[in-house]
């Protein structure tokens, strides 16, 4: 099982989290259909490192954004920011 690097709780087992898919920020609510279609449906297919969302359900109850290599499952080290 993946060991997910929660910035609040440290590295915790995958079973504590719910998965939220690739990071795809929502446009402003009044943005065009085209913008919404792109954000909700299209994905760049860039590989292998992607940003994704995990919800720490059995922990801090925060949604975290992490970078993971989808082929090796390695998490990228945290950004300086």
């Amino acid at each position: 099982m993946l060991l997910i690097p929660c910035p609040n709780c440290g590295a915790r087992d995958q079973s504590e989290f719910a998965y939220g898919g690739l990071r795809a920020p929502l446009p402003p609510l009044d943005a065009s259909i085209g913008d919404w279609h792109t954000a909700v449906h299209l994905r760049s297919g860039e590989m292998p490192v992607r940003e994704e969302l995990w919800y720490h359900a059995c922990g801090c109850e925060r949604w975290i954004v992490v970078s993971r290599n989808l082929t090796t499952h390695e998490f990228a080290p945290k950004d300086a920011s």
Partner: protein
Amino acid sequence: MQHHTKYSGFSLARHALSGHRHWPRILPDCDLRPSYDIVIIGGGGHGLATAYYLATKHEFSNVAVFESGWLGGGNTARNTAIVRSDYLLDASFGLKHLALDLWADLSQELNFNLMYSPRGYVDLAHSDGELEQFTLRANAMNLRGAKADILDLEALKTRVPQLALGDDDRFPIAGALVQERGGVVRHDAVAWGFARKAAAAGVHIFQNCPVTGFDIREGQLAGIQTALGNVDCGQAMISVAGASAKLANLAGFQLPVTPVNVQAFVTEPVKPVLDCVVNYNAGLSYVSQTDKGELVLGGATDGIHSTARRGTFNAIEDTLARATQMFPFLTRLRLMRHWSGTADMTMDGNAIVGDTPVGGLKINAGWGYAGFKATPAVGHEMAALLAGGQTTDLLKPFSLDRFETGALIDDAGIGPYPWLH
């Protein structure tokens, strides 16, 4: 010119006399031509089936198939080999039911034993409410001319005697939908069977030859770049499952597709113990038994994006726990091997087949974990599209633009969350 031998018990006996040293190769060697009428990118079941139908039903033999690895080595080699068409939505049902009709004759047509075994697909319902929804589905199938039945507990006990139907079940079973025409097919044989006949009809099949780029001029396909060299062509089809987004990127467009990992498992081979396919719906798990005796199990996807082709362990535990609910005796058997593949999953869980923003370039992607059963139908219909230029009725609903228009085909009503499908 390759001598093409018909496979049969007689030819087997004849070749036995010479120690099986003179069987012809299933794929003759071929040299890359500078141009092809149609290029198929992806030598899995769908791509090879399309090539076969193009060459034999539409007389297009100036066709090349480029496979980046070994023949059928993608999801065709990795799936759990189940065929069925028990879907509620018209669009989902249509292609898969055409496939069932085609599967029935395909071994003879390809002269390759695909071991099509319509042994029955039993879909378990866990409440009266769920059984009512299954009734809706079974009725829809019957009204479309496809036979499906609902089994109550008594009938289910008779149909699958080894199924545990007791009070100790965590999600007690209320009944089942059964499609007797559903069953299994030998997955490897499908790729080999289509490839052999397509090659015999003149299709060029290149293994270990990835496509590296597209030559697109003013929005029209002009050529394809491959590891073996460049070819001119005006029509091509991308049919590469887990690599769909990568190929789309090369062609300059995006797809509403992301990769998820799907696992499958086999036990050690045992004497016959299960004569149908059974599916458990409270968290997915399904079981069948191969003709070699292994029990094959599969379940839901791992629920995360991945191209690792290597599963997470909790998904294994979930699938096996549910399989054991159905068949408690499984606990004594031993898991021999488990493997994975990358399923490309779309934003409504259904495939994308048809036009792309690039003229002349067609896509066949997003089959998730449901592609194998549709193999001959996809080939049949895509060949018609590539040969005639018209999208067939069965393919129309699967257009890429349905995400822009809102004409979604979401079987389970899950939404634009591919990892949940």
